[in-house]
């Protein structure tokens, strides 16, 4: 649980800039009784956005597209892990058949 002020210090950000990101919904802190509360994932995301914006010159127009694609990649990776876990739980012969099918070159 990290406060808005602490995040600005840790990430070396102007409060106005972070506020703008929150309004854009690039970052989703929770609303506590004393204002916004950030989790570690939010702070890491803030660092990443800052890096992309300041170091990689990804501008305000492009940022939502980048973030949306990134969120899709991570959502898919998470789902993929669940699928992997489900495959792990299959009977060995089914798992082997499935894995060998996945290794086959795609049909064309």
């Amino acid at each position: 649980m990290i406060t808005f002020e602490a995040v600005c210090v840790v990430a070396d950000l102007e409060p106005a800039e972070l506020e703008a990101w929150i309004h854009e919904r690039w970052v989703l802190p929770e609303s506590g009784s004393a204002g916004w509360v950030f989790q570690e994932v939010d702070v890491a995301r803030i660092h990443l956005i800052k890096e992309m914006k300041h170091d990689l010159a990804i501008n305000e127009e492009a940022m939502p597209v980048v973030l949306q694609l990134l969120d899709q990649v991570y959502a898919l990776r998470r789902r993929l892990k669940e699928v992997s876990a489900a495959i792990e739980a299959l009977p060995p012969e089914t798992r082997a058949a499935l894995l060998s099918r996945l290794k086959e070159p795609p049909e064309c």
Partner: protein
Amino acid sequence: MATRNPYEALGVKPEASEAEIRNAYRKLAKRFHPDLNPGNKEAEARFKEIASAYDLLSDKDKRARFDRGEIDEAGQERPRAYAYRGFAEGEPGAKYHAAEGIEPEDLDDILAMFGRGARGGAGIRMRGPDRHYTLTVAFLDAVNGARRRLTLPDKSLDVTIPAGVRDGHVLRLKEQGGPGLGGGPPGDALIEVRIEPHRFFRREGDDIHLELPVTLGEAVLGGRVTVPTTSGTVTMTIPPGSNTGTVLRLKGRGVPRPDGSRGDQYVTLKLVLPEGGDKEFADFLREWAPKHPYDPRRGMEAP
């Protein structure tokens, strides 16, 4: 880890301007940033090199000291305390997934995302695995054919045993195996047939062999006897003067073939004397034998 010269790492000349160095870093960092390449170890290693090169060359003072040879390129790695990828995939990252409208998908859609080929969309439809079973069949059922029920833990299968099936033959029951994936068809059930031996029939290919005990009278005088076959008893004529080991053939009384014809049954005679002996016959032989000597062991002398 061997570290390249920072100019090489960023692909710039030693006399490159600050702007050139920044642009080179941006280009490479966009491509190799580990948060943008989750799970790609090569990108992660490459990014470390790029970032540490940029840290050194973007700092005027450090760059000048490096150029003068006062410091080397090692040990410049920037500690990266906030790796977004470390959180993004796990539970904490879920709110951002939801925020972008990703609904939990069913397995079919997810498997479809593996993309069978660049055209995509095809998805994985996978046939289920085959399952192997063994079915022990009575000798006569194997010859004549039968229907049997195979009871398995999850289901029972009605198996038609074709007439004339051979030992070791594998029957295939379409789509009675393991379930398919992604809407794919089930696998097949493969049932290996094991044939039990019979008390007196023996099978060789499509032919049936049988040893038939006959009386002394039937062998010497000939006669008609009933003989069991795999499809019921038949009457057979034994020619006079038959012996133990004489083979008689019952044509078409063997195993059915797929073309509708049948093999043969071979009957090997076996002379059986009356049980407990017979005094009258013994008396007769005491008279008869000395007058009719013969040597059935002719040719058996040891070399």
